[in-house]
């Protein structure tokens, strides 16, 4: 059975030979994948694409959507809004895709969401995001990625109860960490915590001793860190060597599986919340992980965005099947109502929140153990994101 055929190579032009439809009413579902395949966030784009490709292959092996293979057009947005805009226009106007799928960075998301909404084409985004402070509401926009709020809501009371009430916030100085902390603060005070320090340093900071000195001076019980990338490794190593971690626990986005191989001893035993881990023990996930490892020969931890795009394609296929056609309004209505159980996230049924179209799933509380595996402490239940649309 034909697997999905990417009709456009990286950055290449569609040959225009796509047969039947696209656009309104045809029977072949065409999805435009818009991902940063090159540029600074290429690793996330690649991770998203892997889940996407795996799901498309599975859907087509099982007969496709509406009896026809799901077709894919791939475009590289390079992680920049100008390129994303051009690529999205091409997908919408030239290739006439039925659904746009992808984008990683916030600014490309905003650009593409505007275009998709104007063109009245559904747009699905797989990577985690903050929705509270940039709602991006649109009936055409479906948010597969978990939100900061969903991850922080169970984490805050747990950390306060376990480690203490004094919290220090530290982050890289750009939009995401600021909105992350804006989301965290009300949750922390609701849990009875007191923010004793809040420090930001520009991206590319290699020397953290001054910031660490200020954090130490505030004597926090734990540190909530939204420092990203190489800076996070520098922060963790220097926090250890300068004695901050002797008296303070640390959690946040800096504590994740991706960084584990770099600083295993610093990560062991640290707490975090997540929606997906390749360690989740259910039949669907075991199969997914085995297929992933076989297909990509990659033993590294599987990132959440891969699982999100994988589930997203399956959600889409089910929704379009139920809709009975590729007309945009039908797809939007079907996606809003679609439910799927026994996913890689677990046995529970998942669906898009009717208020803000964020995907609601279980969130888990876990510790990082040796080898980078998450040891699940407990499920924290399904957390709804409170963004109002």
């Amino acid at each position, binding site marked *: 059975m034909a697997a999905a055929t990417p009709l456009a190579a990286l950055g290449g032009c569609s040959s225009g030979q796509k047969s039947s439809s696209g656009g309104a009413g045809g029977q072949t579902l065409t999805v435009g994948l818009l991902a940063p395949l090159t540029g*600074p966030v*290429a*690793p996330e784009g690649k991770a998203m694409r892997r889940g996407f490709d795996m799901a498309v292959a599975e859907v087509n092996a099982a007969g496709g959507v509406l009896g026809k293979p799901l077709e894919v057009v791939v475009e590289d947005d390079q992680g920049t809004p100008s390129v994303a805009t051009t690529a999205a226009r091409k997908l919408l106007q030239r290739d006439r895709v039925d659904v746009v799928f992808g984008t990683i960075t916030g600014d490309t998301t905003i650009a593409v969401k505007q275009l998709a909404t104007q063109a009245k084409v559904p747009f699905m985004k797989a990577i985690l995001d903050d929705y509270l402070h940039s709602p991006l509401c649109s009936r055409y926009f479906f948010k597969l990625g978990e939100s900061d709020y969903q991850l922080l809501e169970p984490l805050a009371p747990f950390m306060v109860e376990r480690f203490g009430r004094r919290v220090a916030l530290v982050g890289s*100085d750009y939009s995401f960490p600021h909105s992350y902390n804006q989301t965290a603060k009300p949750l922390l005070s609701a849990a009875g915590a007191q923010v004793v320090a809040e*420090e*930001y*340093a*520009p991206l*590319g*900071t*290699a*020397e953290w*001793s*001054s*910031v660490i*000195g200020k954090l130490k001076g505030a004597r926090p019980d734990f540190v909530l860190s939204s420092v990203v*990338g*190489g*800076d*996070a*490794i*520098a922060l963790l*190593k*220097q926090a250890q*060597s*300068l*004695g901050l971690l002797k008296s303070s626990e640390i959690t946040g986005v800096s504590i994740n599986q*991706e*960084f584990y*191989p*770099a*600083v295993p001893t610093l990560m062991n035993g640290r707490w975090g919340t997540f929606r997906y881990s390749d360690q989740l023990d259910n039949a669907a996930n075991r199969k997914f992980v085995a297929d992933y490892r076989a297909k990509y020969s990659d033993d590294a931890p599987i990132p959440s965005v891969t699982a999100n795009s994988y589930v997203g394609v399956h959600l889409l296929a089910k929704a379009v099947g139920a809709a009975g056609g590729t007309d945009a309004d039908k797809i939007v209505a079907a996606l809003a109502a679609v439910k799927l159980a026994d996913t890689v996230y677990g046995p529970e049924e998942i669906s898009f929140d009717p208020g803000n179209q964020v995907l609601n799933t279980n969130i888990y509380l876990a510790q990082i153990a040796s080898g980078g595996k998450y040891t699940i402490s407990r499920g924290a239940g399904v957390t709804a994101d409170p963004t109002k649309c």
Partner: protein
Amino acid sequence: MSDLVLLLLNFVSALSVLVLVAVSLGLIFGQLGIINLAQGDLVMVGAFAMYATRELPFLVGVATALVLGLLLGVVLERGLARALYGRGLMPALLATWGVGIVLRQAADALYSSTPHAVAAPVGGSVGVLGVDYPTYRILVAVVVAVLVAAVLAVAYRSSLGLRMRACIDNLEMAALLGTSPQRMFMLVFVAGTVLAVLAGSLAAPIVGVTPTLGLSYLPAAFFAVLLGRPGSIGGPVLGAALVAFLTVLLNRFFTATVAQSLLFAALVLFIAVRPEGVRWHPPARRTRPLQPARGGPTAAS
């Protein structure tokens, strides 16, 4: 009191890697008139050399970085720098920026942009005047101090250094008096490359090793060089000290972002007030020295 000691230790720590990068940049800029925009990426190469040899003892890693720096220096000088002498500012900027891109992309292709880490050879902390400070950072400060002292000793107390400074001051006269410009250029370029790579290998256990690591060091190093007289070898050392001092002081009282903005504003002001710190000279075309040659009585003018 311990606050002051901590500030001092932070200053020494901030100075350590910066001074090596500044001196290496200053050597290449002063002697060869080339602004090497890839200097930061050479630091990154040193750090990745440590990551690549992380299973081996630390000193083996440093030796590997040294050899890599030597090879890279020779290749770059032969292959690229030679074509840039006397050609002007823009070709050098473009070419070295291109080298930087190649280095970063190579590191990304080989190791991906996932941050890596290198273990320090010595852990723990040591008490300095009542303040506990990481032992490794003290070690790095000592090693760098020795290195810089050695570089300055060679530059100002050896005949090789004398010939090098003569070449900087008046290339044609030095050539007429028996110093081969080709060999001097090669020597200086390789020395600059090796110092930068070494800086990276020493910094690796403290930071996160990513392909864009070097870009963090470049602006500060440039300012350190610009604060001194062009061609001076001791100048970048003092410049680096000033930059490190301002950095630590500003970070004590302001948030990191504000401190960085104020730092660069202050440096820009400094240089605006001292414009003789900024003039660029083509080494191959001058027939008169910009400043009188140092050391020894001046000849009858």
